[in-house]
């Protein structure tokens, strides 16, 4: 990291706001924190006395758990609010909920919301640092950062790589954040999926849109698949999972088109046998569980960095 570098962000809203230097810095901090989770006593006092609220308006198991584990390993006090127990069901607006939480003086609010831009809106109404844990179909920055960390760990670098992302690009905030993250670090991102799931303007985000699975995967350093949903709000996106698996599923034969040492990734949870075949998900090239491990380290780094700026 450059001397004199100062992490400039109070909030983590998306990869779009992070420069290559910021990303490199976050990953370096995360790598140094990873060792904490390997200790017999997995706890450091860094964030002792800080209050962190997990405000989840969408169901989530792994992301919420990962943030909570990260916060506890840093000795912060964490509180979880999920939509089912919050005032959201009583008709309270997001702003009112946020203001009420703010009145209890939290230091960091980690928010997941089904509407794109909800975390951005919160920053206008609350004092706490905001970390976006996934907003609508917009961004999921901590997931992209843990993906970047996992690739850097295995490849030793993040530039000059070919990243293939396969599946529902339109509804995937993970794909969106990864396209920005990997291109910003100097790699090329090749995307492929059914035309019904490719939104317009991906090229403007920096991605190369491929016309076949083979074109996307050939000689790739990373093959990332995304969770598929058959139908959304009566929008007939796909005829069946069966056909999706046949035409777009990532099988051993597909992975064989990539570099022999290519990494297989998935943000989870996996639809086994649909977008990713079980033998590939559990095969020697899969780093899916490394992604989960690195998630904790990346989130520790994010908590540490935003607290350093309050």
């Amino acid at each position, binding site marked *: 990291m450059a001397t004199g570098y100062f992490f400039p962000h109070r909030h983590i809203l998306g990869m779009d706001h992070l420069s290559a230097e910021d990303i490199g810095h976050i990953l370096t901090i995360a790598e140094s924190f990873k060792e904490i989770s390997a200790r017999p006593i997995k706890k450091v006092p860094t964030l002792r006395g800080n209050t962190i609220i997990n405000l989840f308006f969408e169901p989530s198991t792994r992301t919420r758990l990962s943030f909570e584990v990260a916060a506890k390993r840093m000795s912060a006090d964490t509180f979880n609010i999920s939509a089912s127990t919050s005032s959201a069901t009583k008709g309270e607006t997001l702003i009112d909920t946020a203001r009420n939480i703010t009145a209890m003086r939290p230091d960091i609010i980690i928010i997941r919301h089904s509407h*794109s831009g909800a975390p951005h809106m919160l920053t206008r109404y609350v004092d706490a640092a905001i970390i976006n844990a996934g907003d609508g179909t917009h961004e999921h920055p901590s997931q992209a950062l843990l993906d970047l960390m996992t690739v850097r760990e295995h490849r030793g670098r993040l530039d000059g790589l070919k990243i293939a992302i396969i599946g529902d690009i339109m509804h995937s905030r993970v794909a969106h954040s990864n396209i920005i993250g990997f291109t910003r670090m100097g790699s090329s991102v090749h995307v492929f999926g059914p035309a019904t799931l490719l939104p317009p303007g991906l090229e403007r985000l920096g991605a190369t849109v491929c016309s076949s699975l083979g074109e996307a995967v050939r000689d790739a350093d990373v093959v990332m698949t995304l969770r598929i949903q058959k139908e959304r709000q009566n929008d007939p996106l796909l005829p069946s999972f069966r056909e999706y698996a046949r035409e777009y599923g990532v099988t051993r034969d597909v992975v064989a088109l990539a570099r022999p040492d290519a990494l297989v990734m998935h943000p989870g949870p996996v639809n086994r046998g649909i977008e990713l075949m079980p033998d590939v998900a559990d095969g020697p090239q899969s780093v899916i569980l490394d992604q989960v491990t690195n998630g904790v380290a990346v989130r520790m780094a994010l908590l540490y960095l935003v607290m350093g700026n309050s």
Partner: protein
Amino acid sequence: MADNWLIKNGRIIDPKNGIDRQGDLLVLEGRIAAEQTPVPASARVIEASGCWVVPGLIDMHVHLREPGEEYKEDIVSGTRAAAAGGFTAVVCMPNTRPVNDCAAVTAMILERARQGSARVYPVGAISSGSRGRKLAEYGELKEAGAVGVSDDGLPVRDSQLMRRALEYAGDFGLAVISHSEDPSLSTGVMNEGEVATRLGLKGIPAAAEAIMVYREIALAEQTGQRVHIAHVSTAMSVELIRAARARGVRVSAETTPHYFTLTDEAVEGYNTNAKMNPPLRSARDREAIREALADGTLDAIATDHAPHSSLEKEVEFDLAANGIIGLETSLPLSLALVRDGLIDARRLVELMSTGPAAILGLPGGSLGAGEAADITVIDPDQTFTYTEDQVVSKSRNSPFLGWRLQGRAVLTMVGGRVTHDCRQA
């Protein structure tokens, strides 16, 4: 009589009567006097040097929210905003609560408008309750004072109903105003394109508008009736309208200042004051709208003035209500078209006064002798910053807050009565 005025030294622009001259305009007892009429001693002088004196501006598409949503706007506050923006008449859409689908609601609106600062011309609903099932009673709507019919805010899904509306409205000389939108395609919250993808917001394709614009053209052509397309936002629609008019189809169309001024980039930062339906489109669409204003494909600039309170706008973008206020910014934003050399002053007056009057058969749009003195005096050079504290409307939902604007109505007069006056001493 109080309503005698001598408007002096202005540039009088009256396209309907082929007039564009420097000089004086006399108002006697609330009516425009013929040239050379002796000026009575009682006439008060309005100095208009450096200003344009034009027939009162007419906004053919506003939402006054009364009855039903008076916390957003009412007829008195909405017409006050109209007067401040240089409008002497507004045409209000029927999507109130209750919907204006009968004589009683129309009459109530007109009764309330007597306290207002601009003439109010109500539009009745195409279908009963705007529910899209059966025709509203156009005969009694017309008799009560409706000037057209529309289910604005909602598309008419059923093509047979739309066909019958065109035919039946023709019997009463009522214009049918189409909110053109294919609802199965328009499930998003902003224009479909690169910006929506970047923001993770669901897009509304341009085709959602164009498909319905074509349906209305086909029905107008089939039946020989006329149709008016509201708030045109896309290049595709413009091309359809241009081609239809070339072959003689009776189709007219309006656009709004936001479609020729902004693009979907304005949504950046999840700005709910840039959320409306149809949505702000691409730069290419904006260019096509501007060309269509210049070449005559579009007949009118309306505002689609749609007041909403913070309750509807200070929420997640997906959940925010559609629409922005526009009465107070329409004229300066339209004057920018003149400064850009796209249209001349005469064309501006056609688009904002003469054109709307002709489409709906309204009085006004003319400075001919004997006409009611509905007059707007425009200072095309005055600049001002549009800030929240000077908004006259009850609502503040404008994407133009903080903009430095050039040109404004310095005086508005309805039937010889001054409804707005911000002349600098």
